[in-house]
Every structure is written in C-alpha cells, then in structure tokens.
C-alpha cells in the first residue's frame, strides 16, 4: 500500500509541476493556445487512473491535462502540442484543448462542454458489443451536467448496462459562474443518476487515497458486471478558468472560500500525511521534485526543438 501511496503522490506532484511549468512559461508566447490548467484538481485523475489499464479508455474536456497525464499520455507530445509543433500529440492541429494519445487510451478531449460524454458512452458501448472486460471513464465538470446530452447519455448507458464510469469534477464554477446561478439548490447529481437506474457515489475530490480506493472497487465491479456508475467529486481549481494566472482579485470566489480550499490542497494535505506517517521522507520528496523537473525540462526542450508543420498540412487529413 505504501508503494501505491507514493505513486499516487508522485503522480499528483508530477501533474502539478508540469502545469506550473506551463503557467510559468506561458508568458514567453510560445504556447499560443488557450490552456485550462488542472492545478488543484489532480486527485480525481490520479486516484481513478491508478485503477485503469492501458486498454481502458478515457475521454475528457477542456481541462484535460491532468487526465491525459495520469492516464499515461506522452508528456513530450503534449508540450509539443501546446507549442503547435508537428511532433505534438495532434500534430499541432488541436492545441491544449484537443489532447489525444490513443496508445495510452486517451481517446479524446474537446472544448465543447459536454460533447465527449456521449462519445465516451459510444466507446463503452463498443466494449460491451465486443464483450471485452474494459471500462471507459468520462471526465466532465459541474457545468457539463447542465447539458441535455448528459442526461441523454446517462439514460442510454443505463438502458444498455454499459461499462462506463461518469466522473463529475465539481469545482463549483463554470468559468466565473457559481453553482447558484445555474442549478437549483436541491439538485443532486447522484439522485439524477439513481432516477434513471444508475448508482452513484460522492467522494471528496481532494482525497486521492479515498478516490483511489473507492474507484478501485467501482471499476472492478463494472468490469465484472458491466453497468454504469456516477462518481461525484467536489474540488477546487487554483488558477483562473482559462490561462496561466491566478484570478482571485476578481472576487468571484470569496477569500474565505479560497483559503478553505487552498488549505485543503490535495497535494499539500497528502504530503503532510505521508511525511507524518513516514511513508515518505524529505529526501525522497527532493528526488521526486528533481526527477519531475528534469522530465519537464526535457519536454520543453523537445517541444522547442521540434518543427512546425509545413503549409501543405493545412489541407491534409480533412478526409481519411
């Protein structure tokens, strides 16, 4: 178990530091695309993905870096993609909002809110048709649950008992809009799922260990006996909705609220616990940081040294 705890910690730290590096380097204007950073929301990705095989697939949305990385998406290709290079995971055509790594099982990320939900259901339907023992995990935010296609997708997954895990990362905001602007107080995603015959689980979204444990059971159940499940995870985004900075000065989230959540940072709290329980020591931590920092340096170097796609690629790949 300690090994897994360390791994969970390492994976979260790695994502955090990569995102931080993107944030730090954004000002050099080499990553010329919108970025929706995952800082603060590392736990769901890391906790759940620990239970997935390569053959299991995920789809995600605009805030996809953590999912891509936790699922094993290639770091070099991701950073190159953000740089618009032909060595990028989408050959530069997609940018940050279209990460993909088919080998790693990252089937898709797209920035239209809710759009990959039915596509993920389609993927899981095919798993069922092929009678494979895999699962599809669909990541989306609280805002995405307001799209009708979310409900349509739940309905169908329930009707056909599909092997799919719906993961809602509720960071309580859609851009600057609080939940109270968008959803009735009594609205409850777990109940919405139950009303169409899908069971659901709510777990704290910053508690990586618990996410790991609970989702382990859920995922193994789904693989055993295909049927959908909804996971609801409350969490908090540290930075602005889109872009490299912090936007706390805009006051759409109260200082108290921000403080409460920053104190509850998934990495900070887990680190404290691991150090306290001697699962991890300072030296190991230092090693982690170094290892990650080295990997990041190489990735940025790879991206910088890669070539831009040539003009002729503009009109390539329109049709297969």
């Amino acid at each position, binding site marked *: 178990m300690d090994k897994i705890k360390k791994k969970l910690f390492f994976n979260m730290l790695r994502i955090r530091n990569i995102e931080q590096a993107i944030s730090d380097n954004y000002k050099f204007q080499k990553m010329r695309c919108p970025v929706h950073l995952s800082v603060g929301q590392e736990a769901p990705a890391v906790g759940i993905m620990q239970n997935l095989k390569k053959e299991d697939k995920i789809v995600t949305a605009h805030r996809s870096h953590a999912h891509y990385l936790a699922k094993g998406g290639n770091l070099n290709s991701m950073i190159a993609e953000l740089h618009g290079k032909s060595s990028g995971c989408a050959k530069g055509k997609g940018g940050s909002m279209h990460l993909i790594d088919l080998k790693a099982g990252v089937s898709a990320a797209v920035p239209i809110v809710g759009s990959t939900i*039915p596509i993920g259901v389609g993927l899981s339907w095919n798993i069922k048709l092929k009678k494979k023992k895999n699962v599809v995990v669909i990541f989306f935010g609280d805002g995405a649950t307001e799209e009708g296609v979310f409900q349509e997708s739940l309905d*169908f997954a329930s009707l056909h008992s599909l092997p799919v895990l719906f993961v809602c990362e509720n960071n309580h905001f859609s851009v600057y809009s609080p939940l109270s602007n968008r959803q009735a107080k009594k609205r409850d995603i777990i109940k919405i799922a139950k009303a169409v015959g899908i069971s659901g689980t709510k777990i704290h979204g910053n508690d990586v260990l618990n996410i790991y444990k609970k989702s382990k059971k859920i995922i193994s159940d789904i693989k055993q006996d295909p049927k959908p499940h909804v996971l609801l995870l409350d969490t908090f985004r540290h930075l602005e909705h889109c872009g490299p900075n912090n936007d706390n000065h805009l006051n759409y989230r109260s200082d108290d609220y921000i403080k409460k959540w920053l104190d509850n940072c998934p990495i900070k709290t887990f680190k404290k616990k691991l150090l306290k329980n001697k699962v991890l020591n300072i030296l190991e931590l230092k090693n982690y940081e170094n290892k990650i920092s080295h990997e990041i340096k190489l990735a940025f170097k790879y991206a910088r040294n890669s070539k831009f796609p040539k003009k002729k690629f503009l009109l*390539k790949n329109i049709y297969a």
Partner: protein
Amino acid sequence: MLKKRIITFADAINEALSQSMQKDKNVIIMGLGVDDPGGVFGTTKDLIKKFPKDRVFDMPTSENAFTGFAIGLAISGKKPVISHQRVEFSLLSMEQIINQASKWFYMSGGQAPVPMVIRLIIGRGWGQGPQHSQSLEVLFSHIPGLKVVCPSTPFEAKGMLIESIKDKNPVIFFEHRWLHLTKGFVPKKMYSIPLNGPRLMKKGSDITIISFSYMLIECLTVCKILSDNNVKAEVMNISVLNPLSIKKIINSVKKTKRVLIVDNGWKNYGIGSEIFARLFENFTKTKITCERMGIADSPIPSTISLSKHSYPTKFTIIKKIEKILKKKLIIKQKYISKIPSDQPDKSFLGPF
C-alpha cells in the same frame, strides 16, 4: 432473355444495408424505429430478422446523444449507420456533426477517422408543413470533413450507400421521401458507386440541366418534353455535393453554353449558388447563359394551395428553359398530370 431487375429506391437502400452488414460485421444500424414494422419507410424492414439484435438498434428520441454514441463506435472500429426520418431531427445533433464528426480526423492529426453514415430523409407533400419538409443540404455541404451524398435513382441509392458505408469519413446521406417510392434497375449483387461527383444522366448538346435528389427526377421528365420540342438537353446529376467536383459539369457546359441549375433546396445561399459561382469562375472567356431555380425562399406551408408554389415543377422549369433558349416550347397533354401536387403518385396518401 434477360429481364432487368426493377425494385424501389427504398428496397435498394434496404439491400445496401443488408449486404453491407453481411459483408462487414462492424456495420451497425441505429435510429428511431429501425426495428419497427414501418422500418424507416421500408428501408430497414426485416433487418432485425436477418441480423442479431446487437446490430440493429432502436434509439430513444435523444438525437444529439446518439450521434455522439455513433462517433464513439466509429472511432473504435464500428461502422454505424444512423437514420433520421426527417432531416429536421438531425438539427438536434448539429453540434456533434459539425464540431465533432467532421473534424475528428483532422483535429486528431490524422489518427482517428470517423467512418459513419448519417441518413437524412427529406420530407415532402401531404401537408408535411414547415418542420417536416426542409431540404437543408447546404448546412452540411458547407462543412469541410463531411461528405454529402444525394442519390436520385434506386441504382445510385444502393451503390452509393454501400460506398458510403465503406468510406472512412462521416457521410451525410440524403434520401428524398418521394424517391423511396420510385423504381428502377438495381443489380442484385453488391456493387458500389464511387463518391466522386457528377454523373451524366442524359446526353445532349443544347442545354445542360444540373440537379440532384428528387428535383433531378423532375428534370428527367422535363427532358422528355424537351425532346418532343427537338431540344437536346444534357442532364448532370450532382450526386455528391461535398466534396464537389465540377469538372464534368464544365465539360458539359463547354459544349452547350447554356445551363439551368435546379436546386433541391431553398434557392438563397443554396447548392445552386456554389455551382453558379464555380461555373462563372471557369468560364471567364466564353459567354454562357445560366439560370437557377430552387424552393421558394419561405418556410414550406402545409396547405396544398401554397405548397404547390414552393417547389419548381415541370412547368416552371420549362418556362425557365424557354427563357434560356429564347424559344417557345410545347407541353403535350400527357405530361399534364392529374395527380395533386402534394402526391408523387396516386398511392401516396400520407399520412406522413
């Protein structure tokens, strides 16, 4: 003596689906009512009897989501064929079609093709009214990454559907409701027609008539009237609206110098507009005469007394041709149909 095999357009579609399913076990049929006694105007009839249940799927009325499901199937190796009994229902799924399906291969840097077919049925007649008789081909044809196919004959219907299913791209496959009832020669064996552009339907030298889908059938009747008048019309069928290939049309017009485009949809910002533009881009030196027609630019009303003026007819087409040829044409009595304008033939009595 060999007798040619004559079947309906709807049966030709059915046969294309059936043979494609037989040949490739990844082909899956999905849509509202594909397994029901109506079988999407007969086009999916009995497929549920011939194939296992997990290849013919009735769908809930969740058009947006099930287009997404189909994309998910397609990018993971299946070949879904989805259908909407009216093109209007697909408007619920435009996000999935335009943002996702059409761009998926491109935006994945060429990694993930989306081999799927979306069958869109255009309604007409018997008072279908504003929300059940739009054409809307241009909404799809404008989008790079989509192929848009509009067969006009049973022969084309089968061959082009088989090809569309084989194709690795999202193909929008338009079927006009009134074509479903038409009959024609269709070989029994599996064959396919490449999705590569206009087809010559009738050779001629006096005028080139360009059309597609149901309107092409009207144009072919018009040709007979023209024949009686000693006018030799060449008829080109633009059965593939996107990607649009114009070469054969150019060659025809080089010969005739006169063109009539009869659009199957609204005239304004229509399919005809693009063809018109392409023609004049190509004929900068030679003078050509070109006219276009299309559905009157209003919602299509339910009442027959108005809808009969919505669509181009043999008579209005002839009138346009008279203008182009600067010549009076005679229409024989036999072409003056006694069937009301909201029925393609006597058998068609609605109710939908």
